[in-house]
């Protein structure tokens, strides 16, 4: 059974039809990338997977998304509770202002009720190690989250998302605001995370998808054009538009 299974997902912003009937499967412990030209609904699509899309006024979505067998768009599902099972990392690193590094990492746990200092410290250490940030911040856990560099802040956000232990991690262009060295570090991290989590990443950078993703989906204007193993998509695309995009004829 696939961890995440999307069937006939459609999404709108008021009257604008953005995500056009997408169906995709995400196997366990893999990285799947979504590529395509700007403004084609990639971000909207991924934001539907944790139902954060509908928090904007005028936005709505239809279809079914099965997380570990349960449809998150089913009747009676509380989006707030569901989001504890899907983590999200955003385009711009956004540690919470005026909170320390430690507080940023454990905020998800704290607000779900865990209060014992010892347990929180443990969890923080585990997550920061997973995010490959522990060694750099273990001496300054009580410094402000925003005092870190851009790349470190993004890893902090990854640690924060991992703290609540979601099986799936959604990443919306996580390296587009970072310099090449920081980006490379994040890509390394993603390859490591693959061993424990299922990752879906939207990226503007085809080469990044080719480097790290097992599967790649190609979107244009909210429609799924082609999907398959990354090696296939990049060396032997079946659709002419895919080939055009990959060889740079548009995009």
């Amino acid at each position, binding site marked *: 059974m696939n961890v995440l299974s999307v069937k006939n997902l459609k999404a709108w912003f008021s009257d604008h039809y953005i995500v056009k009937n997408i169906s995709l499967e995400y196997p366990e412990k893999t990285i799947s990338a979504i590529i395509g030209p700007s403004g084609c609904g990639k971000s909207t699509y991924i934001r539907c997977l944790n139902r954060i899309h*509908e*928090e*904007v*006024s005028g*936005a709505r979505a239809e279809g079914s998304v099965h997380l570990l067998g349960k449809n998150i768009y089913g009747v009676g599902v*509380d*989006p*707030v509770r569901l989001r504890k099972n899907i983590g999200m990392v955003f385009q711009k690193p956004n540690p919470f202002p005026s909170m320390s590094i430690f507080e940023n990492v454990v905020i998800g746990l704290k607000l779900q009720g865990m209060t014992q200092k010892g347990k929180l410290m443990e969890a923080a250490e585990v997550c920061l190690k997973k995010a490959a940030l522990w060694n750099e911040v273990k001496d300054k856990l009580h410094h402000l989250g925003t005092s870190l560099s851009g790349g470190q802040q993004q890893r902090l956000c990854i640690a924060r998302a991992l703290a609540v232990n979601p099986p799936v991690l959604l990443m919306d262009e996580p390296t587009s605001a970072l310099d090449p060295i920081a980006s490379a570090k994040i890509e390394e991290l993603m390859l490591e995370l693959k061993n424990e989590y299922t990752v879906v990443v939207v990226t503007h950078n085809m080469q990044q998808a080719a480097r790290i993703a097992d599967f790649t989906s190609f979107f244009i204007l909210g429609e799924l054009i082609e999907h398959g193993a990354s090696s296939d998509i990049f060396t032997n695309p079946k659709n002419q538009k895919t080939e055009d995009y990959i060889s740079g004829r548009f995009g």
Partner: protein
Amino acid sequence: MKISNREDAVSLFLMKTMAALVVAMLFALILLLFKVSLPAIKTFGFKFITSTEWNPVEDRFGALSFIFGTCLTSTLALLMAAPLSIGVALFINEVLPKRLGNLLALFVEMIASIPSIVFGLWGLFFLAPWIKTLAAPWLKLHFGFLPFFNGPSFGIGFLTASLILAVMITPTITSVCREVFKAIPPLQKEAALALGATRYETLKIAVLSPSLSGIVGAIVLGFGRAVGETMAVAMVIGNSATISASLFSPGATMASVIANEYPEASGLQISSLCFVGLLLFFITIFINGLARTIIWRGQNKWRRV
């Protein structure tokens, strides 16, 4: 957005209730203001605005002298304060280096935070005697042929009140002007400089002309502030319901007469004072609304460009 979560629905409900309460309270207050003014409205009607008689003994009241006083002092204050404030705003934003500019801005804001009563004290014990002994004789000597400077000066009066008002509204006009000037993209100024303009010309072309509506809005806002100012004016204007062309004459404004007479008033006088307050309230709303429309429209023009 959908509220699918019960906790969120409850918290939103509480917030909405609070908001509704505040709105309701404001309406209640306005209605109350009408209610207490009703006796005077019924007795005097429209004549209230055209009569200058203010006779507590015989219960005959008219607000014209106060309307005159408010208009005179506020307009005079504006004439004095507007050029100075715009100049200071330009000075802080465009001429001074950043640190000095911030220091000067701090001082100007300090003027705004001095309580009105302290201005009144200073006006009563320092400015009034100064005007009586130095300024008034000088003005009468050099400009005595003008009707503005006739008559004896006791220090208190329209001129003193206008001077104090001018000081008090300067920070308002300055801060709004500064915001307006800050909104000009530096590109415009650089374009002018690249053409070889002096700083004066750059500012005239690239800053002052496009900001004209914003400056007007700032001035109107300052006018609104002057119209509503109470304590400082009450202490230096003399509390006399007179209309006079002489700036040395004592007088009263709508705000000052309420402050001066309300505590000891009773019966129809209270109602008349509340009627004056009602008029003042609507005038202030109108002026502030006008100012905001002017500034808002001016800013929208920028966005189109």
